[in-house]
Every structure is written in C-alpha cells, then in structure tokens.
C-alpha cells in the first residue's frame, strides 16, 4: 500500500475474472485423463467419441481406424454447456446401424453428464488452487506491510532512546557546572574567607555542603549512566589486587553498616591472582552492591563480602554446532555479596538491571537512591567481560555474584 493516508486505488488482487467468468474447457480438463475416459468409453460401448474446444480444436478423440465418415454412420453432436456457457462440442459416434440410433442418444447424454462432473471437479480444483495462491500472496503482502510499520516504529524508538541518552548527558553536565560553584563558594564560606561564622551559620553552611555533595554524586552517577548508554565508557586497565580492593571497599562502607547495627563480614581468599581491570570501576561495582545490601537490610542483619577463585563458564554460540569447543571454562574471580535483607521477587530479577528501575517505588522513598546502581554494576561488569547473577526471594535475603574472567596483566 502507498505511503499516503488517502484511500489507495482499488487494486483487483483477486483472480476476479476466474471467479466471475467461466474458464475455457482446456483449463478445466486434464487432456490425458480425458483421453483415458474416452478410451474407456470406447472400450465399454464400442462407440467413438471426440471432445472439441470452443474454437473447434480437438481435445480428445478415440475412434475406429480411418475416416469415421467412410462408415456412413450417424454422429451425435452435443454442445458442452457448463455454468450457462457453451465451452465446446461433444461428438459421439458414428453409429452405422440405424436401429441403434436411440442408443447413440443415450450414450451421448451419459458422456455429457460424465463430462459435466469432470468440469465441475476441474473448476473446483482450479478455483481452490488459484485462491490458495492469491491468499498466500495477500498474506505475504499484509505481513510485509506490518513489518515495514514495525521497523519504522523500532527505528523511531531507537532514535528516541539515543536522544534520551544525549539529553541525560547534556543535562548532567549543565547541572554540574553551577553546582561546582556552589560547592566552591560554600567551602570558601566554611573556611572563613568571607569572615568569621558563628555556630549556627557554620551548621547551615555544612548542611549546604553535605547536600551539595549528595547532589553532585547523583549527577555524576547520571553522567556515568549516560556515558555507559552511549558506549563512551573506556576502561583504564591496570594490575589490580582483588583482595586489597575488597578490603578497601569494606572499610569505606563499614561506617554506614555500623550506623544501622549491621554485621559486616568479609572472607577473602588470600591466594588471589593479580588481575587486569579498571580499579576505579571495579571499586564502584563492589561499592554499589554493598551499598544496596546495607540499604535493604534491616537493623541487626548481616552483610557478607566473599572473594574467591571460581570457574567461569562462558557459553559461546549457545545452541549451535561447536558450542562445546568454544565454551571452554576459564579461570575466574568471584565477588559475592550476601545480605539478610528484604529480598527481590523472582519476577523482578531480569528488570532490576534496567536503568531507573526499582522493585518498589516506596522503597526509594524509604531508602533513597535513584535506581541506577545495579544498572551501572551490570554495564561495568559487562565491560569487563564478566557476568552478574543473583539468588533472591522476598524475605530470604539476596546474593549477588559477580564473576570476572582472570586476565593477567601483561609482563
């Protein structure tokens, strides 16, 4: 169909002439089958028979040797009428004996009825097969049109998604610039550059500082997501000691855990290899996971970080030939974060890695956060060639496992 929204020109897609008109005799009868019928007729009744098309062309004929007229007998000619139309002529005979001419008429009528049944079957088969083809073509046309519309919608959504990421990046950047000034000036005020502050003023300016820092952190997170979505993230790979990194992160979050009276444990395999990774990004992964664990674990619960060596089975080309060869196990490193918190319903396991997705909006108001943490974790782990898995159910706590392939630093 055309792009225009006006009514398209009525296309006659149906084999309309076929439906409304009567086909020619040749279209309805199979010549060799007709010949068989004629022969059988001749063998049974000893009567020659000929079937002629509308233009007089011979479709089928079975007769005695030689010119029939030589026998001097009489022939019976009947028009072949189907669906009110004359499609051809049936000639039965010659019948040389005058006393059997009554028989000739009966046989001609009989053959004419046989022919009518054959024509009807032929017509039915012709219509069915033509309709079948036309329907297949029509369905194909319909599908092709739908695919086209889907493709357009998909392209548009992709474009919108790209615009959203650009908007996010630009906005975050624009927000950050004035905020940097706010932080700078409040630092100057706090340091007494604008004159001595009394206790109340100092308290107020500290609050401004604190809230500005929180805001900056949020904006930086947004920038991260935008960068990740635009695939602009570049990892800076360097040798990293995973054990050391883990202990550092535990120290960072321990005040927050202590504040909620949460037991923070860590088990670190001491024989960890040095790996090649982006230390700051890996730190962010662990921080986000531990922050979340602490955030969603009630007072008196516990949060554990384990770092162990593990096998890493990356399934390559799943379902295709050679998967068994391509998917060899690799050496891997596993970071495991387990909590005794509220848990995540199984139905949500897929979606929690989407940007801005939160299992329960009310949890945000209670616990704070943007719904970006796990999306960043997923993207950073992906960038490192690793995988994130989780086990969780409501009320049973949550266990996140990050597995990274061990890429040993060069030299």
């Amino acid at each position, binding site marked *: *169909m055309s792009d225009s929204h006006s*009514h*398209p*020109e*009525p*296309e*006659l*897609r*149906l084999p*309309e002439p076929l*439906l*409304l*008109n009567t086909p020619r005799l040749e279209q309805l009868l199979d010549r060799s089958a007709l010949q068989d019928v004629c022969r059988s007729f001749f063998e049974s009744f000893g009567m020659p028979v000929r079937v002629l098309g509308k233009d007089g062309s011979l479709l089928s004929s079975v007769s005695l040797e030689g010119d029939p007229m030589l026998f001097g007998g009489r022939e019976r000619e009947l028009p072949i009428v189907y*669906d*009110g139309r004359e499609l051809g002529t049936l000639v039965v005979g010659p019948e040389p004996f005058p006393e059997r001419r009554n028989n000739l008429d009966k046989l001609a009528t009989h053959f004419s009825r046989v022919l009518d049944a054959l024509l*009807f079957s032929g*017509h*039915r088969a012709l*219509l*069915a097969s033509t*309709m*079948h083809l*036309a*329907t297949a073509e*029509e*369905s194909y046309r*319909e599908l092709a049109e739908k695919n086209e519309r889907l493709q357009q919608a998909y392209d548009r959504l992709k474009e919108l998604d790209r615009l959203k990421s650009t908007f996010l990046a630009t906005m975050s950047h624009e927000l950050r610039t004035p905020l940097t000034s706010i932080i700078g000036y409040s630092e100057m005020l706090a340091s007494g550059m604008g004159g001595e502050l009394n206790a109340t003023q100092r308290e107020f300016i500290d609050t401004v500082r604190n809230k500005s820092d929180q805001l900056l952190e949020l904006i930086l997170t947004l920038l991260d997501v935008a960068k990740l979505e635009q695939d602009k993230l570049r990892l800076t790979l360097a040798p990293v000691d995973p054990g050391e990194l883990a202990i550092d992160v535990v120290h960072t979050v321990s005040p927050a855990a202590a504040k909620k009276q949460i037991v923070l444990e860590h088990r670190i395999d001491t024989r960890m290899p040095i790996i090649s990774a982006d230390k700051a990004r890996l730190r962010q992964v662990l921080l986000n996971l531990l922050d979340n664990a602490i955030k969603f674990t009630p007072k008196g619960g516990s949060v554990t970080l384990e770092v162990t060596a593990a096998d890493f089975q990356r399934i390559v080309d799943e379902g295709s030939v050679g998967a068994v060869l391509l998917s060899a196990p690799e050496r891997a490193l596993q970071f495991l974060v387990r909590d005794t918190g509220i848990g995540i319903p199984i139905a949500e396991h897929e979606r929690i890695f989407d940007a801005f997705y939160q299992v329960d909006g009310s949890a945000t108001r209670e616990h704070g956060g943007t719904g970006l943490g796990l999306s960043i974790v997923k993207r950073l782990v992906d960038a490192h060639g690793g995988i994130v898995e989780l086990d969780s159910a409501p009320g049973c706590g949550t266990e996140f496992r990050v597995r990274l392939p061990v890429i040993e630093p060069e030299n």
Partner: protein
Amino acid sequence: MQLDFNARELTVKLVYYGPALSGKTTNLKALHELVSQQARGRLMTLDTKDDRTLFFDLLPLQIKAGSGLTVRLKVLTVPGQVIHNATRRLVLSGADGVAFIADSRKSETREGANAFLNLRQNLTESGIDPTAMPIVIQFNKRDLPDIRPDAELDQLAKRGKEPVFKAVAMQGVGVLDTFMGLVRLTWAKLERENQLEKKFQISADEVLQSLGAKLDSSASTTGAAR
C-alpha cells in the same frame, strides 16, 4: 459488476459475510434448495474436512431479462474464522452487495460486532467506502434460546439505514427475504451508477420477479420465508 456488451451479459457479485459459524453457508445451501431441480446449478463449496469454509462457497444463478440480457449472479460466502482474513478480503474485493449474517444469540453479540468492524475495515482497505456498499443484515438462528429479543432488534434496526432480516437458515426461514432484500438494494445502486434500465430496458422489478420465479419457494420442501 462485469458487463459484457458482446455477449449481452451482466455479472453481479454478492457476498455473504459474517462471523464464524453464523450460518453463511447454510444460507447458500437453503437458497440452492429453493431453485427448482432442473434449473439448479451446482453449489460449489471449498471447505475443510470439518465443514468449515476454507476459501468460499459459490452459488451461481442466472436469469434472462430486459432486451435479451443475461444476468449472472455469483453468490459467495467468505470464510468466517478470524485467521482467514486475507481470503476474506480477496473474496470481498469487487463485491456489488453484502449480506451480513449474524448469530442472534446474546453470547455471540460481541463476535458479530467484531466481524462487522472487520468487514468495514476490509472494505476501506480495498478502497471501498463502506457507506456506499449495499449491505443488508440478517439475524440468524432465531429458533435458539437466549437470543436478542425481536423488540430490541426492531428498535435498533430503525436507527440504522440498512434493511434487517430475521432468519432460521437451517429451516430455510428468512433466507429468501434476505437474498431478495440484498438484490433489491444492490440493483438500486447498479441502476444509479449504470442506467441499466435506459441501456438494456431492464428494471429492478423485472429482475426481482425473474429471480422470484426461479427461487420458487413452493418447489422446495424446506419451507418458505415468512
């Protein structure tokens, strides 16, 4: 409509439309029964083994009228099942008039409405203005329990512009009324567009009379329409 001046032949295409199992094929069969034995052509059905229409049913009817003009009516049904929409659209294309067969049962009201919307959409997609298409509606299966009551249908029929008929197609009741109503409406449109009376001295009354004689209900054992 196809007009063959040389053969002095006019071919008119009438389509029975409607939801699955509403009785389109039954209508055609009943109509076929009404034609006197000797004048009866074959009813062609293209169906599956469980008697559901796959492509269409075709009933050819033929009358002579006016100044030696042959009027050939091709009465077709569409397959009602939702999945056969492509076939339905193909059969519908080039139709001169449509009889919409609905199931009267209350439980089938929604199906009927959906099928009617589908008819409108298919007409529009084929470049035909649905309001310009001669359409009659038949509420079939009036003998079943829990049907939409007469009063309700009569009330609603007054508000639409199309003729509404009631039928029990299984018993042949209302089948002829519906068909004649469809021919009357269709002919009126063909006359408006082609001045058939002027060109061929053929009037609507004559066509209806000839058809009425051909579809002589007394020749049938299945009972007449009311």
